[in-house]
């Protein structure tokens, strides 16, 4: 079994002769596309003479990024922290609730409608409420990140536990297994791949949540930096913020995708092995 895991980017690619050249080219493609986009952007701005306060050229943005590197990084670190704290809270509460909802029918019946209702509230609408309660510090951002990212964790953990094969439950119950034994030996291990899959989604959402909150409440953070720059028509700084945000978003996603790949390899191979 040397087949690559399903999330291997090469899997959907057409079968080409295995020459070194095409392999390298395949790896280089995403970077080439990104670079090409920036070049195109630069050229369009130059050719059509687009004013800097509407769409600054990448070279101008880069120059701003370098010139204001220290303050931008200070805001970035701040945003990273509020995101991670909110995300950590989401993991703690999400897992606890997910296990409860997945394992006990009563909890499911009682909580599911509430959770759905809660999840359908646009989280931006929470920010003013959080400001009333917690003022303009980091807490509204942390709580927004938390509230937006914990739902997918709950749902995934609960799904992992609730979809246990009924035959397996019968086997275990006939051995005299107690509920907590079934949960510990089977339910929780089998929900791990679901949990780790949800982390990639949840971290991205947490990040969205904290930036949204910063744009409304903040006096710090990348969201605040961009709103502030925009109010001064400092387009290059706004775009610099945007670029930092996209790097951060992609970076966080990659970290958790890698954690998922390393921790639950058996799940991917299991699916392949059984077709």
């Amino acid at each position, binding site marked *: 079994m040397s087949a690559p895991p399903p999330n291997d980017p090469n899997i959907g690619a057409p079968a080409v002769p295995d020459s070194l050249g095409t392999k390298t080219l395949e790896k280089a493609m995403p970077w080439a596309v990104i670079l090409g986009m920036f070049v195109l952007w630069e050229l369009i701005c130059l050719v059509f003479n687009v004013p800097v306060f509407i769409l600054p050229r990448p070279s101008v943005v880069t120059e701003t990024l370098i010139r204001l590197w220290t303050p931008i990084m200070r805001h970035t670190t701040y945003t990273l922290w509020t995101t991670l704290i909110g995300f950590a809270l989401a993991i703690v509460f999400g897992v606890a609730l997910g296990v409860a909802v997945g394992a006990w029918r009563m909890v499911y019946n009682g909580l599911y409608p509430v959770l759905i209702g809660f999840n359908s509230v646009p989280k931006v609408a929470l920010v003013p409420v959080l400001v009333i309660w917690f003022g303009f510090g980091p807490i509204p951002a942390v709580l927004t990140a938390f509230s937006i990212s914990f739902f997918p964790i709950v749902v995934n953990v609960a799904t992992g536990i609730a979809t246990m094969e009924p035959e397996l439950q019968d086997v275990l119950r006939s*051995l005299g297994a107690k509920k907590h034994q079934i949960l510990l030996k089977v339910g929780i291990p089998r929900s791990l791949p679901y949990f780790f899959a949800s982390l990639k989604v949840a971290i991205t959402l947490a990040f969205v949540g904290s930036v949204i909150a910063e744009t409304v409440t903040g006096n710090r953070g990348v969201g605040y930096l961009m709103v502030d720059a925009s109010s001064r028509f400092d387009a290059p700084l706004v775009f610099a913020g945007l670029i930092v945000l996209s790097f951060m978003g992609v970076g966080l996603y990659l970290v958790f995708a890698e954690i998922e790949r390393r921790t639950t390899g*058996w799940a991917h191979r*299991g699916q392949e*092995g059984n077709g």
Partner: protein
Amino acid sequence: MAFVSLDKVRLVYGAASSGTLAVQDASLSMERGEFVAVVGPSGCGKSTILKMVSGLLSPSAGLVAVEGQRVTQPRKDCGIAFQNPTLLPWRTTLDNILLSVEIAEEHSKSYRRDPKPYLDKAHELLATVGLTGFENKFPWQLSGGMQQRASLCRALIHQPQLLLLDEPFAALDAFTREDLWQVLQNLYLTRKFTVILVTHDLREAAFLADTVYIMSKRPGRIVSSKRVEIQRPRRLDDCFKPEFTDMVHDLRARIAKELEAA
């Protein structure tokens, strides 16, 4: 005294008035050490009967007894295997088999204190079913037949008196299935447990069982039974003897009659 007995058992899924009547007036009785097969049309309540014998389900009416005692809760001296081998993908073959002794109360303490005897037992079982060398492989590295062999070992490691099999070989190809008939027969002959095998394969029932019970359409009743008088150990060649084919034809005719009735 019968080892397992069902007396006018009835089972309704859901509410008594509006639910599904799955089993009605089912009666049978079997001796200790007997190998019983239950055959019948799909949906007639075969799995339901197994679940009642194991104590996973309680009958709505009638009596299910094992060793003369009414079954009221899951019996811990049963081993169960299903069509779906349901091995845990994050555990090796060996660890999957040991799951039973980690959980069963009579074994879990002594297993934790000294796993050695249980490891020996597991290796011995694995050898009997032909899985030596696969102890440390994961389920996704095993073929369907091998997974089913491991699932049988998991059902037997805690030395149950009663082995309950719910169409365990239904998803396997013909050659693997016949292979496993012999594996099961060997286990049965060496370990002397009692077996209830639910199947819709009449040749399988005739090859393995001492007594074949035939069920009617839902709501399932036991409508007739047939003794199989072929000497053990039975060999696959026996399946081509006229007595064997006659018996399978007879079983088929009885089920066909059940399907026509009503």
